[in-house]
Structure formats: C-alpha cells, structure tokens
C-alpha cells in the first residue's frame, strides 16, 4: 500500500515549526531578550524574566516534548504509518 509520504512529512514539519516557535519564545524570548522588560512584573518573590530563565522555560520544555510526542502519534495514525 502506498502511503501519502509527502503529506505525512508536511504535517510533521508543521508540528515541528509550532514546537520550535514555543521553544524559542520561552527561552530566548522571555528568558533572555525580553527578560529586562518582564522583570518589571513579579511572580511571588520572583521577577518574571528571571523566573523564565531559571524555572519557567524548563517547565514549558517538558510539556512541549510530551505534547509533541502525543501529536506525532496522532499524525502517525492519521497517515497510517504508525508502528504495529
């Protein structure tokens, strides 16, 4: 049976793009480039930019990987290329 290989790869790349945008925003964005600005806001005793750089980004990374793994599983099944 011929699979829609092109379609599968397009869907994969689309998901990857989303993952990488979020990955970039929480670390390089909130943790570095915008940190000074975000430090004006506080989260408990944490300045927000500092929190992203030393705590927040890590939590988002974890969620991101599991979300990616789940979505990829869906895409695998949608294009019928999942493992048996």
């Amino acid at each position, binding site marked *: 049976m011929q699979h829609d290989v092109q379609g599968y790869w397009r869907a994969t790349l689309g998901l990857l793009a989303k*993952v990488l945008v979020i990955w970039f925003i929480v*670390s390089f964005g909130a943790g570095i480039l915008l940190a000074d600005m975000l430090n004006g806001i506080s989260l408990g*005793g944490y300045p927000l930019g500092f929190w992203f750089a030393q705590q927040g*980004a*890590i939590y988002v990374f974890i969620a991101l990987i599991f979300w*990616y793994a789940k979505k990829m599983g869906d895409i695998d099944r949608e294009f019928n*290329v*999942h493992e048996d």
Partner: protein
Amino acid sequence: MDLQTTIYLVVGATFALYIGIAIWARAGSTSDYYAAGGGVPPVMNGMATAADWMSAASFISMAGLIANMGYGGGLFLMGWTGGYVLLACLLAPYLRKFGKFTVPQFIGDRFYSQTASTVAVVCLLVASVTYIIGQMTGVGVAFSRFLGVSSDTGIYVGMAIVFTYAVFGGMKGITYTQVAQYIVLIFAYVIPAIFISIALTGVPLPQFGLGANLSGTDVSLLQKLDQVVTELGFGKYTTSTAGSTLNMFVYTLSLMIGTAGLPHVIMRFFTVPTVAAARSSAGWALVFIAILYTTAPAVGAMAKLNLHGTVNSAVGIVNDPKGGLKVDAATVKANADIYAPEASLKYEERPDWMKRWEKTGLLKFEDKNGDGRIQYYNDKTKNEAAKAKAEAAGWKGNELTVNADIIVLANPEIALLPNWVIALVAAGGLAAALSTAAGLLMAISAAISHDLIKGVFAPNISEKGELLAGKISMAVAIVIAGWLGLNPPGFAAGTVALAFGIAASSLFPAIMMGIFSKKMNKEGAIAGMLAGLSVTLFYVFAHKGIFFVKGTEYLNLIGGANSFFGITPEAFGAVGALVNFIVAFVVDKVTKEPPEHIQHMVENVRIPRGSKAVDGAHAH
C-alpha cells in the same frame, strides 16, 4: 559518629550497590555491551539518561556557577534542558528508526562514505574527551574533600576509580547502575535544598522557596540577596547577564544544540524499543533532569546568601541553637550595616567546614588588612558607592576566595546540616561524575573499537578483540583527560560547556541535515563537519591553549579575548554550527547529488512504520 566516618560509610554503601548491579547485569555479547539489548522501558531509560546526562558539571559545578553569575547562570539551565526539545523532535525518533548503534555509523551510512564516518569519529572523540576533562575536575574536587587531600591527588584517585568502574560492565550493566545512581544523586541534591529552603523561608519546595519571603519578614529572599551582593560591589543577582545579551543568547543556543549532538546522550535513544518510545523517552529524561535543574537555582542563591551570612553578621543569617542556620528577622528588616567593623567574622571563629575546605586548597583566606576578620566582597567593583564604603571601613581587598566548584558540596556544611546529609551529597557528587564518565567512555570505546577499528582498519576483528580494543581506548582516554584535568581549562561546568560547543558545531548539523535534507551529499556533510569543528577549535584553543595545554594560547592571533563580537569560547559552538551549515550547503550545491538509494533511505527513516525491521540494535 563523626563526619568522616559517616562519609566513608555512605559512599562505600552506594559504591557496593553500583558494583553489585554491574556484576549482576554483566554484558554478554557486543550488542549488549553497547546498546543494552533494547530491553529498557522509557521511564527507566529516562532515568538512566538523566543520570548519564547529569554529570559533575550539573551536580557539583552548575549551582556554584549560578551563585557566582546570578541571572546569567540561567544559560546553563535553559541550555542544558532546551536541548532535549531538539533531541526529542529533531533527532531521537529518526535515529531510532535508522536503528544502528552509534552516531558515526549513522553518518557513515547516510553519507555513504567511510570518510564521513571517520570524520564523525574524530568530532566525537574531541567532544567526549573535553567533556571528561570537565568530569575529572569535578571528581577531583569531590575526592579531595572526601579524602581530605589536595585536588590533584583527588584527580588521581578519581582516575583509578572511573577506570575500574567503566571497564567492568557494558551499557546494560551501566543502564541499571545508572538508575541506582540517579536515585542516589537526586536525593543527595534535593534533600539539603529542602532543609535549607525550610530554614530560610519556611517553604519546603526549593522551587517555591527561591521566590518566597525570608522567614518572619516581608523581604523576599531574592530581594535580600540582591541588596547584599550589590552593597558588597557584586552585580545585582537577579539581572546580571553573562557578558552581553548576545553572548548569553549564543551560549544558550550552543548548549542546546550541543545537547542534541552529544554522542553519549544520542546513543541512549538507539536503545529504546520503538520510535514512539524514543519521542517520549526524551520527555521522561527531561522530567528527571528538571527535578535537579529547577532545584539548582535555589541551591545557588541560597548557598550564596548563607555564605555571605556566615562571614558577615549584618546579613541576618545566624546559627540556630537547635542546629543549622536561621533567619534573624530583626537584622534583616533593619538592613544592618555590612561594613560595620564587628560585622565581619573573626578568622579564629570560623566554622569547621571552612577549615576542612582550606585543606583542599579550594577555599583560601588571606588577611590583607590584618584585622583578623574575614572581609568577603568584590574589590574590583565599578560600583563607586561600594568602593568608597569599603575604603572607609579600612578594607584592603577581598580576603576570601571560594572556588565555584565547591559550592554544592560545601552547601550542606555551610548550612550546618546533619552529617548524614553532608555524606549523602558527597555520594551524590561521585555518582554524578562516575555515571557520566562511564557513559562517555562507552561512547569513546564504541567509536574507536566499533567505528574505527572494526569499520575501517580491521573488519575481521573478533568480538573479543573488539571488546579489548574498546577497553584499551577507555584507559587511554582516562589518562589523557585526567592529565589535562590537573590544569583544567576552567570550572567543571565551563569545560563541559566547551565540549557542548564542539558537539554543536560538528555533529549536530551533520545529523540534522542527514534527516531533514534528502539532497545533502557526502561532500557537503564532510566539508561542513570539518569547517564547523576547525573554526570552533581554532577559537577555543586561542583562549584555552592547543588541546588545552597551558601556555600554548594564541590570543594575539585573533585580536584578544572574546574578539568575535564579545563571544566567549564556551559560547562559540553556535557560531561553529552556523559555519557548518553554510559550508555544507555551498559544497552540496556544487557537487553531485546523493545516489537514489540514499534518498530512499532518508524517506524511509522519516516514517516510524517498520522500525522493528531495521532494528540493528535489537536484532539479537
């Protein structure tokens, strides 16, 4: 029981445990030796990966550097965790589908070239050996404190132990041992942090304690720390960056892509049963890693506050008569004068832990103004107010030098925690260093015996001969790394960062292009790897000496330190990676495209189905 006996007992017990497991799970065939036979479930693989990953750099060194760097230390935290996102979605599932043992094997097959594989072996060796130098520095610190000897002697002892340990089992022995090591090291890291967080803020979870108020006050811990360090002339804790913002940016990026390019981490994902498991394994690994990584900033900040509190009574951290340290709310609220003469600690009255660390040479006191008291501040400050106050108080320069690499190990001692906690931390530090060193030595031995000797020089070598060659290469790697570790190119975490830069600039781009660019050919990949590696090594060696040998630096040749847009050598890997990509694409454009069957292979690697059929690591 006295402290030293407790340490021997706890460390001894954990070692007996690891060795017991290694014997019980001894590797049989070569495939067992390198890839654990594929019988490792994702959660356990995640734990073992975490142990493999969290080395002396993460455990011993990182929080100390964060304490020194403040906010800028976040680059280690983001860099060494963010890489797992890249690993999980860009590399791991595809390499698992490909189904071979090693990174050079993938590069050799994908780029249909023995040369490509050999170049990858070279990149892998340079990165791994640099990494082990960092480990050796950490092991030296741990053993010097643990045995009460100089840090050099500590390194010699460490070399012997790492060697015996690594040649014992293979990956399988190591996988189960590493699960045990993870458990030891994570308890060792988190327990003292919880104790300290409760003592300072009353909040048990250090992740929340760092953002909480000091007990009995409405001053937040970070606010107090900011105030104390700024008054003493250091940079403000919550905002000081590591060099420029650009440097922090590329440094973080280097660590991230280096994570995804380091062979001993990637190897882990060859050993999971399915492609789907490869994806979630990276997530599980990160969960276990994050427990330490989200605790580390609290450890760093709290240790720093405790250290300043110990040597200066005006900070408001005092000895609790019930044991440990506690917050003196009145002093904290009053913002007592740090420069008052009686605030500085008398050298004669220093706590025992300082005396113990003085023996290692990693903590030093020098009474510059002859008043018999310890003044600990930044005497090179650009903060004029701090400078004026120090001069007015008759301070003649900083009198206390604390090596950043001792902060974590000394942390429970600084906080005057019970002996069993101090012993546990010593055991955890050794577990971290040993597990990573062992994993790296595995990668080195696989690269030399499997990819180089069996693959290139002697294809007919027997299994026995291959294993022997692997063990000999481990021994050589340990000796070289140990020798260079005596004069390390930086703190453990800094040296390890260099290793990440090397992996980032050489291996990561080649693997990425191998998967995501069907048309990338062998000429492009080889040229890219060589360009990325050489430009990075050129910049690093200019700062740190040729192959890290002291005295061979050539900074004037590149126009001074950090001459490339203020980027430090540790951060340069991302630039190297960019060079790698550019060179590869240019060369690829002017040479002929890869053969049809390679393009089919890439298409096939992209699809999970059939993972069991191309199952090199699991065929036995």
